[in-house]
């Protein structure tokens, strides 16, 4: 049986090469039972590779990893019994309907025909996919597919759930659905390893964040610790006329610690109180009578984190293709 004292994941020096290219380099990872850990990193950071090694789908070249006390290389069957992986790309049979997929996976997990039907029904209700249950998966939208995929991972409540970029490509509403599902599961006692490109998502869901790039760990800590190093959310004000920048800076510096980005015509102030600070800034601007193009509350992005922690932008050597770049976050972080 599973050693209940062992950490959910304990990886030491895990390394994976593809030819000459090292995708994951000597990565350590420890996930305590009952916690949520997020692997955060841009495209190509090695998140999927890491997750696939832990899920016994990829053989590490060196290093060791144990899942619930079982070695991923020498005891893969035991690992597979406690882990459930929702990969980055939907792992469903595209020629079967959503319901058929769920029933098939339930039967492969050893449930009888009737039990499989019941389980599939309950999961479809839970994930709000009853209406699309009889549609063939290849005809579903990306978000619908993701929900079915997630449901398929929860057929037997796993001890360890691994979600590889569960919300990439989802609209804000579907993202909220995934987030609240994840919170429910965690409340039920599931240990979760989650990969994401969004600092905001790691912040919203994880107890601990490991920031990786080029297969190596760059920083790790609680979201609060990382944010303290990265900087809090702030209010950015863009003036219409660059000549007014000085005046706005003076107007705001009365009550805020301002910083000015001249080429972006922007005055930036920290906003630990979010909306309240936004209101105060707006008030100050109105009193000063300065014309502005935009006043916005911004949360630090993966980009900001990289800049703060490594002194260089995301994918500095890869032409900055991370799609999380420069993305003002417009929806609520519920936490």
């Amino acid at each position, binding site marked *: 049986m599973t050693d209940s004292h062992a950490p959910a994941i304990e990886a030491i020096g895990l390394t994976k090469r593809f030819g000459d290219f090292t995708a994951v380099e000597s990565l350590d990872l420890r996930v305590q039972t009952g916690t949520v850990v997020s692997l955060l990193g841009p495209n190509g950071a090695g998140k999927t590779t890491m997750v*696939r090694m832990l*899920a*016994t*789908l*990829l*053989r590490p070249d060196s290093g060791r990893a144990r899942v619930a006390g079982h070695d991923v290389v020498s005891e893969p*069957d035991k690992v*597979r*019994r*406690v*882990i*459930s*992986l929702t*990969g980055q*790309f*939907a*792992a*469903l*049979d*595209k*020629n*079967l309907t959503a319901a*058929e997929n769920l029933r*098939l*996976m*339930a*039967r*492969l*997990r*050893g*449930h009888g025909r009737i*039990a499989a039907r019941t*389980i599939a029904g*309950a*999961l479809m*209700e*839970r*994930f*709000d996919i009853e209406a699309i249950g009889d549609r*063939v998966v290849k005809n579903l939208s990306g978000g619908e597919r993701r929900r079915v995929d997630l449901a*398929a991972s*929860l*057929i*037997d*409540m*796993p001890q360890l759930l691994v979600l590889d970029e569960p919300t990439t490509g989802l609209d804000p509403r579907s993202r909220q*659905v995934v987030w*609240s*599902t994840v919170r*429910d599961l965690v409340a039920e006692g599931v240990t979760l390893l989650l990969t994401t490109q969004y600092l905001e998502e790691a912040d919203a869901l994880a107890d601990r964040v490991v920031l990786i790039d080029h297969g190596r760990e760059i920083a790790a800590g609680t979201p609060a610790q990382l944010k303290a190093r990265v900087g809090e959310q702030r209010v950015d004000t863009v003036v219409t006329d660059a000549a007014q920048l000085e005046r706005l800076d003076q107007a705001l510096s009365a009550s805020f610690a301002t910083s000015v980005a001249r080429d972006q015509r922007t005055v930036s102030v920290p906003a630990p109180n979010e909306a309240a600070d936004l209101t105060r800034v707006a008030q100050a601007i109105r009193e000063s009578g300065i014309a502005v193009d935009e006043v916005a509350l911004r949360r630090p992005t993966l980009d900001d984190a990289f800049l703060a922690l490594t002194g260089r932008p995301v994918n500095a050597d890869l032409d900055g293709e991370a799609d999380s770049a420069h993305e003002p976050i417009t929806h609520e972080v519920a936490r």
Partner: protein
Amino acid sequence: MNATTISPPRAVRNSRAHGARRYVTDTLLLTGRSLRSIPRVPERLLDVTIQPIVFILLFLYVFGSAIHVAGISYKDYLFPGIIGQSLAFGIIGAGVATSSDMTEGVVDRFRSMPISRLSIISGQVMGQFCEALLGIVITVGVGLALGWDPHLTALHAVELVALMVLAIFAFTWTGVLFGMLVRSPDAMQGMGFIIILPLTFMAGTFVPIAGLDAVPRAIADWDPISALVAAVRSLTQGYPSSGSWQLDHPEIAMALWCLLILAIVVPLALRRFNRMLAG
């Protein structure tokens, strides 16, 4: 969203019989999965049935008028050839299906679940086998409808069915192996067109081997598909063939070819499959 309890805990899996029984159950479930996709992807079945039908129509009503084979009506000469060709096309069908299936994310899910891994490839082979069998049944049906007249004794009928099943099995495994080796379904399709199509043409399928030029004739004498076609023709029409050892004894040669192919292809396919799984 409401908080429905998800399912009874994992113990179910552990209480289940392991080993052989688990392998059989998982294989049947995965075979069922493949079979279910037959009506959902009708193109695939059409691939293996339309092609023979086109060849039947082409040779029966277009080229056939210019081809005369001594001692047999062209119709009765042609249909065994078409059946041999369709059996060989099973390689392409299984290969295309496997290469698109094995690169799908769903195989990853199977791999990360506590199921018998061998059942993944077994289910694939079984599913493709059934699909190929269905294709042959349709082709034979079309032949009979168009007036093909096989003369079968009961014994020959049993022998014919057994040989065809063996051939479908061998070609399905071959297709599954190729499907795991090629990069894409298109590559498999291309390979089928360049290698398998010519081999089916040089096998006494449409015209007698005896009349071929030296080079194609040398190939045809030892082309396994020649043995296949000759065996079907010998069993259904009692029409003899000769030229090489395999053409003198087509039924035995066909069985030996199939066994040889299986002996080579099955271990290679399993090895390739394990490699793929190892990542």
